[in-house]
């Protein structure tokens, strides 16, 4: 599909927002909360700027530290994607602008003031994260700085993915604080704090810092972010209500479908389950959700038995090996002869847990397996006409999962077309739910 047509379609759909002040809604959507006057008086005495690194902290977490003493800001703890949820059902599908929101509950103004008032250092030198995860981190830095200090440049040390023919398959693992480059930098700059010299690996050659613009930093991931946030916004508006209606999630929450005790006893497993019930559909709104939903629909009994065992045995979400439907192999995605193998992104279990929470699939304790609920089967019937597979194949570009910027418009059109189809399917279901009822005998066979 040519890009002109794509642009036209976007304008067409976004034009529907004119009467509700689209720009005002979008502007409100992209703004980070302002810094209060009280926060501006706070003295940032440990660090005149901010040193930000990708991923999550190993220890200590900024959640546990007083903001004054946090000189390293972990991006995944600072910001999280903010999916557009404005407007009415009739206004969807649409393509909203990219936005993030503060993830930290307390002290974000102080972090913001650090970023606003001083130089920002962003360091990828020692991370284990993969290319896509790092590109997402870069965009977060760019968004953070651009929101708080428009036009400012960022000092960066970026990982060069062109030097290695074989990017690591290792899923995201926490950084060791022992090799933290920011700690080293702080020490070199003369800031006074104790640190264990054994923490520092002096055999590694330290890369040079370079100054870059926020636009340049975010450019490689621009297409991914635009498309994935657009997908999420539309799925939240169209897909989630459909799931809740068909799978009768609110009713199930009162009793019936639930996580077995073994899962809820492990906090990290229970968290996703409960967050869905609270109305946070973070993972269900992510683009890989339909891949997991379809893979589950196409899975064998043997695969679902193994999924049951893995969910029961693993201590951590990332340790759950998910293999389903000849499409997902231990978290890697593969889709045919010429399709690239997308490396594990460090998540898969989250989608499964949210599907359990939503009442799409259920744990069958006696049979030692995971299976579709009746609602899940109906949902599959309803969504089967929306072209999930086509959409996914268009997004499959290379092993990194990164989408070239020039494909943005073409894929925006694909997303809009997909959600127009989903809206039609939903309308048909709402009009005549009985016609989608699943033949139970056939389903159980």
């Amino acid at each position, binding site marked *: 599909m040519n890009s002109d047509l794509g642009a036209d379609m976007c304008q067409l759909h976004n034009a529907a927002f004119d009467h509700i002040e689209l720009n005002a809604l979008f502007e409100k959507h992209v703004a980070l909360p302002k810094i209060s006057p009280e926060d501006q008086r706070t003295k940032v005495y440990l660090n005149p700027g901010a040193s930000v690194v990708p991923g999550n902290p190993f220890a200590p977490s900024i959640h546990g530290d007083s903001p004054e003493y946090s000189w390293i800001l972990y991006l995944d703890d600072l910001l999280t994607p903010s999916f557009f949820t404005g407007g009415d059902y009739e206004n969807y599908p649409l393509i909203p602008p990219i936005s993030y929101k503060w993830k930290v509950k307390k002290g974000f103004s102080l972090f913001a003031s650090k970023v606003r008032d001083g130089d920002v250092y962003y360091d990828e030198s020692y991370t284990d994260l993969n290319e896509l995860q790092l590109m997402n981190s870069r965009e977060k830095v760019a968004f953070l700085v651009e929101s708080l200090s428009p036009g400012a440049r960022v000092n960066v040390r970026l990982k060069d993915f062109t030097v290695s023919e074989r990017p690591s398959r290792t899923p995201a693992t926490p950084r060791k604080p022992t090799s933290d480059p920011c700690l080293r930098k702080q020490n070199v700059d003369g800031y006074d704090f104790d640190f264990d010299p054994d923490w520092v690996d002096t055999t590694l050659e330290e890369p040079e810092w370079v100054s870059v613009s926020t636009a340049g930093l975010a450019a490689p991931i621009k297409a991914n972010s635009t498309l994935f946030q657009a997908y999420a916004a539309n799925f939240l508006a169209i897909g989630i209500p459909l799931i809740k209606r068909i799978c009768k999630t609110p009713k199930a929450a009162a009793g019936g479908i639930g996580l077995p005790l073994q899962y809820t006893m492990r906090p990290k497993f229970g968290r996703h389950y409960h967050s869905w019930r609270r109305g946070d559909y973070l993972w269900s709104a992510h683009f890989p959700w339909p891949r997991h939903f379809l893979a589950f629909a196409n899975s064998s009994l043997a695969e679902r038995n193994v999924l049951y065992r893995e969910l029961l045995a693993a201590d951590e979400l990332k340790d759950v090996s998910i293999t389903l439907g000849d499409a997902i192999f231990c978290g890697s995605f593969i889709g045919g002869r010429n399709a690239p*193998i997308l490396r594990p992104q460090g998540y898969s279990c989250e989608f499964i847990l949210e599907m359990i929470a939503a009442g799409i699939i259920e744990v069958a304790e006696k049979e030692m397996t995971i299976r579709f609920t009746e609602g899940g089967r109906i949902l599959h019937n309803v969504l089967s006409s929306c072209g999930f597979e086509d959409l996914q194949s268009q997004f499959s570009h290379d092993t990194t999962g990164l989408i070239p910027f020039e494909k943005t418009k073409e894929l925006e059109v694909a997303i809009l077309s997909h959600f127009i189809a989903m809206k039609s399917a939903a309308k048909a279901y709402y009009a005549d739910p009985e016609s989608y009822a699943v033949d139970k005998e056939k389903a159980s066979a």
Partner: protein
Amino acid sequence: MTDLAVEQEFDLKAYLKDLSTIPLIDNTYRPATLTLVPGSINKKEAIETAKSIGTDAILFERQADKAPYEFYPMLVDQPYEWRFSRFGRTAATLSNRTFVYDELVDPKEACISSRLQAGLIMHTFQPGVKFPVRLRSPEVVYQTMTGEELAATAAVVGRFHASYVANFLVIGMKAFFTLGMVDPGSDNIDPLGKLSPSASAAVTVAHSRTWATKCHLWTAYYDFMSVLFGMKRSTMNQRRMLYDQFTTTESFEDLKITIGGSIVSGYLAGTGRYTPAVKRTNFHSFVAELLVIGGACLDTDLQEIRLTDFGNKVAETFAALDDQDMMLKWYDPSVCMPPNIPADRATYVDEWLLEYFTTMKAIADKL
């Protein structure tokens, strides 16, 4: 049916009796208690001073494959022999000691064979004496048992394992050679250097080659045929994924492979009809074994690990033996860990073994 009744010059009864014992050479008094545990911990520690020791460090599986071809298929309980380096000294230091058997020291170690080993040691040195044992099961059980009683808890699996391996080494390998198995000693599996450069990949392949050259023991393990038939049934995506794993994975120890529907994420899952699926740690070793004996190859054009003509020929020749639920159908679902076959299913297992290898022998004899 068995050929046990056939009168031959070979004394089968004496042979089987010999397999069931381990020689004693000393009766030196040792008062200390020795804790026997699964695995091979303290393998290098002086056994005189060790307070605990892995049973694998003391005994080694012995293969019952030395009887004439006509005697197979046969059924045999799991035989053991002293690990060569400890022979003599071990026997001397184990005499008159008090034993404890504990499976909870290292939950990751397989504990079926260790029950057989510990039971045999206890029975050999202190027949009829009850010792404290702690077994791994859904509920941790503390009890006292004689060596015979302990060994009996794993006897069916042990018998299945020993009988399968022995019969395969004699019948299966004969057929493999007839069908044109390549020399496992040749370094031909990765001429283009595509295999992962990691040390663990090299170790895996080297192990496979060593075993294949020495005695084909890994080919004779029942998981080997599961992998072979799995490869035959595999989808293109599965073969591509396998190629990707073998050419890029840094840690082969953590490799979890999926082939042919019955092997999923490193689990033996069968058709799915029988639960629970059983976790295995070494399916990748059997893929390496297939590569080493020329049954599979790294196809760089298709980016797949696929069966070779030889591999396909073996899979097609023995297609009648493809039983995806082997083992799983005998396990007791109420005993999830360790996967164990209850004693009351021994008859079914024996019948299955004899039928399986009678069929294999009939096919092999026609080649």
